[in-house]
């Protein structure tokens, strides 16, 4: 049977993949995708936790609402992020993170 | 309302007036003059028979932690307040006309004055500390703008060194505060001292060491002295006068008020260390002073060296030596102010203070030479000047301690070192005097337009010297005041 740790491991793997993408990719759009992936991974673990902790006979809906919020917030965040990227691309003609180096030290 | 409050707030009022467009020099002169007269009056009005703390006033600041703004003065504070008034007044008198932002200069001087007045009249360690540190920035600004020589490096060194040092003091004060049991915690040093006497608190000796290092640095105790010479030699004359003359005494004041009465055991335990350091201050710095080739550096180092003698007075820790130390603080404050004032006047005229480039100025500047001579003699401790009386008392006091301690060897060595310091100071001060003022005129063609001291330089310095002489001939005037603190 599937234990909680299966789900958590799957979520963890997805989270790690997202993290790896954020750290290793240099295209900001793809970084945003990876971020989105990380948030989804979190959703998975929350849902898993809620499913495995039965309250009054049903799963913890508080957690599911949290997931709902996360999805919403993530969407908003991505929207704003993409808007910034559009503006950035318009002014710098790039979405490459290494080109963002006018301020350092 | 305590009259001491006026001493602190008058300068601030003056600053506001100057900012609003009042003539800077006149306003500052009036303010400091008024402060001087007020402190003189307070000294006169102080009830010697009653002794203790007078002119008390208490304002609660943070009642929960026992932090109050308490003003009050005893003889020692009054003496130092008098010194503050006198030196700040003369410092403003001798301030030359300057091209860059004169208003700022006077404001800075006034801030230092107010800080000093506050430091010497606060009974709360917090404000004691705070008021003294006010001077940090004005000094920084003044050295940077109006200093001479390698002024930027000097300003940085002084500010950072003293900044670090005052933090150590702050830590010491906090440690002291926390060492009292919770319900008795207070920043009032009278309470702190009482607690130690009742042995309610358990002051550890490391607090004493913190305070010693902190206050010691301010007094340029070896090996924490290296900020002092460069600062004093680079600072404009009025700044150097106030800093070396008065501000430096704050460290000693702090030690007398905090470290010594609260940690009698630790003082005894570490007297060996302090004695060794003060011997270094006298002998080592003495010889460093001898090696100096410039007037300003010589005077600056000399002020470091003289602190050793005062420290001896503190270590000996009896009524004689403490009174002597207080007297010497007063005398040294005035004499070093005289020397720096003249040093500044000379620098303005000759643009160099190197011995090799000077000589025979007495023929061109008889007044300056006369006053400098007096200053020199005061500084080397000629009888008739306050410094002599102070030194004598310290020596007797230290000897008295030797009697009590059944001949502590290191103390004896320290006394001998301090006595030898008198010789050393004669060596370098007389050489300085001789190199600058006597002998044939060096490069006579350079000094064709040189002018002797004007009245505004001559009069204030003379005032300082007259006070030095009066209190030197009648030291009991000061001692009566000071003794109220050491009874």
């Amino acid at each position, binding site marked *: 049977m599937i234990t909680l740790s299966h789900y958590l491991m799957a979520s963890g793997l997805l989270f790690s993949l997202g*993290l790896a993408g954020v750290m290793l990719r240099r295209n900001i759009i793809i970084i945003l995708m990876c971020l989105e992936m990380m*948030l989804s991974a979190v959703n998975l673990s929350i849902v898993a936790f809620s499913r495995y902790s039965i309250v009054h006979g049903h799963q913890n809906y508080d957690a599911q609402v949290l997931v709902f919020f996360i999805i919403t*917030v993530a969407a908003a965040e991505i929207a704003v992020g993409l808007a*910034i990227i559009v503006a950035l691309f318009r002014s710098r003609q790039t979405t490459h993170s290494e080109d963002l180096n006018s301020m350092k030290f | 309302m305590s009259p001491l409050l006026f001493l602190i707030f008058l300068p601030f009022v003056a600053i506001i007036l100057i900012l609003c467009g009042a003539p800077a020099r006149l306003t500052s002169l009036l303010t400091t003059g008024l402060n001087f007269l007020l402190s003189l009056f307070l000294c006169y009005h102080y009830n010697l028979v009653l002794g203790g703390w007078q002119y008390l006033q208490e304002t609660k600041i943070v009642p929960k932690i026992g932090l109050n703004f308490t003003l009050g003065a005893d003889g020692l504070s009054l003496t130092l307040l008098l010194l503050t008034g006198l030196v700040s007044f003369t410092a403003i008198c001798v301030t030359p006309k300057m091209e860059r932002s004169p208003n700022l200069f006077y404001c800075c001087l006034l801030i230092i004055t107010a800080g000093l007045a506050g430091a010497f009249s606060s009974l709360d360690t917090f404000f004691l500390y*705070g008021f003294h540190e006010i001077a*940090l920035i004005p000094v920084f600004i003044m050295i940077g703008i109006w200093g001479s020589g390698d002024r930027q490096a000097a300003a940085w060194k002084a*500010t*950072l060194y003293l900044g670090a040092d005052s933090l150590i003091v702050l830590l010491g004060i906090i440690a002291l505060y926390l060492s009292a049991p919770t319900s008795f915690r207070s920043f009032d040093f009278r309470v702190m001292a009482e607690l130690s006497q009742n042995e309610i608190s358990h002051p550890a000796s490391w607090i004493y060491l913190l305070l010693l290092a902190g206050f010691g640095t301010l007094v340029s105790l070896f090996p924490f002295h290296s900020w002092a010479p460069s600062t004093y030699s680079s600072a404009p004359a009025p700044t150097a006068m106030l800093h070396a003359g008065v501000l430096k005494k704050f460290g000693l004041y702090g030690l007398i008020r905090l470290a010594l009465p609260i940690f009698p055991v630790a003082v005894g335990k570490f007297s060996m260390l302090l004695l060794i350091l003060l011997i270094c201050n006298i002998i080592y710095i003495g010889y460093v002073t001898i090696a100096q080739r410039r007037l300003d550096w010589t005077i600056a180092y000399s002020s470091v060296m003289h602190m050793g003698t005062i420290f001896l007075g503190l270590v000996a820790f009896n009524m004689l030596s403490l009174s002597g130390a207080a007297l010497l603080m007063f005398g040294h404050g005035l004499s070093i102010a005289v020397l720096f004032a003249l040093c500044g006047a000379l620098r303005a005229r000759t643009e160099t203070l190197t011995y090799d480039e000077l000589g025979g100025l007495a023929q061109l500047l008889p007044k300056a030479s006369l006053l400098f001579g007096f200053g020199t003699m005061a500084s080397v401790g000629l009888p008739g000047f306050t410094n002599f009386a102070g030194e004598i008392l310290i020596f007797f006091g230290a000897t008295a301690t030797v009697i009590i301690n059944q001949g502590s060897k290191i103390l004896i060595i320290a006394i001998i070192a301090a006595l030898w310091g008198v010789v050393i100071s004669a060596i370098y001060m007389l050489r300085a005097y001789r190199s600058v003022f006597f002998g044939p005129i060096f490069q006579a063609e350079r000094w064709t337009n040189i002018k002797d001291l004007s009245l505004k330089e001559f009069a204030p310095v003379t005032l300082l010297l007259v006070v030095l002489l009066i209190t030197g001939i009648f030291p009991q005037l000061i001692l009566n005041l000071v003794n109220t603190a050491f009874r």
Partner: protein
Amino acid sequence: MNPLFLELTVVLLGIALLMVEAFFPKLCKKRLAFVGMGGLFFVLLLTWLPMSSVSIESAPFYTIDNVALFFKRFMIVTTILTLLMSLDYIPVIERGIPGERLGAGVGEFFILPIFACASLMWLVSAVSFILLFVSLECMTVVLYISISYLRKDPKSLEAGTKYLILSALTTGFLIYGISWIFGVTGTTSIAHLAESIVLLPASSMTPLLFGTGLILVALCFKIAAFPFQFWLPDVYQGAPTPITAFLSIASKAAGFVLLLRFLEQLYLIPTLGKKVFAITTLLAIVTLLFGNLAAMAQTNMKRLLAYSSIAHTGYILMAVASIGAALAVPAIGFYLVAYLAMTSLAFIVLMIVTETSGGDEIYCFQGLHERSPLLAAAMTVAMISLAGLPFSAGFFGKFFIFQVAFQQGHYGLLAVATLSVVAGIYYYLKVVKAMYWKQPSETCTPITLSKLTTVLISALIAVIIILGIYPTPILMSLQ
């Protein structure tokens, strides 16, 4: 009254202004700002009304204790100051955004902080991870937009992007942490965290720590503790100056409130408390060292203030690490208030100087004293206060923090802090040095200030000095 009305009023104010902006685009933007400030001031006054306890529905999320009330006021004041600063910043905004006509898009610059203010007010009341997450994100989104507001300025966009990526990344960590805490304890409430943890078996400690670590990372990111401070200097430098100030003050304060609420619970569990205590101490040490030492060689004023902001995080972390002392929370509150006054003063002067000398490097401050004595004096007061010299608000702040740290026996931390303060004196005085020692360059002309700015600057100087002498009101309101 119901405290929720406070935020509601602010939100309504923001929406109303948005409407006005949308329907009357020709309206003078300054009026908009003044209405916004007026409204916020009104809400500020409302906070002194007696508050009813919050309704049952929102009770698990929302608290209105002293700390919350205090920081609500704090946030409102910060926002008002930001708006005041923005008034002087209008020319820069106009240059910075591509508009069809002058003044397009300026109005929103005044309105967005109001929404941020509302979310911050929720945030400081949050005692549930859910409210925490939502309101934190709300504020963050506003900041994303505001930081990249000057679209013609590549630096602003670059800063926005960096903040976006890094902040979103930490959001990921935050909710991952929240999910772990929820998974282990079964609760999303911060206020009842300790109660739930006590019931747990010992074996749950590791996952709990895993979650705690992740949440701490996110909070440390907000307060910019080392090694989570990397975004900060770049973002500070690139963001519009009023937003930098807002970011530096409000966002940091909010981070600390959350940290306090979270750690207060953890400290109740002895085993956990010790670990967290050690971590906070360590963080304080490295943050102090990094912030202060790295600032020493800095030549750009905005970056200098950024590093200084990191440094101040270090100081406040000292107090967080000493949370056991009675005065710790008031000390943090006071420090933040002091930080509010001095940082906003510094940023205001910086903004004016940047505008008139065309740069935010420290050398642009040269001879400021001769160009405008008031500005120089204001900057000096700000620097003195930031450096923590008496009698300035910053001094009392440091004093209280040193005291609580001493009380808790953090001697190593104090030693590091001492070194830091000295380094701080150095780099703050670098500015003072430039203003006073140096002569202004030939091209620099005297600066004339508007009346409002003069009053604002004088008021801030007065606040810094008064708090430097009489800090009690602030302390009292946090006890």
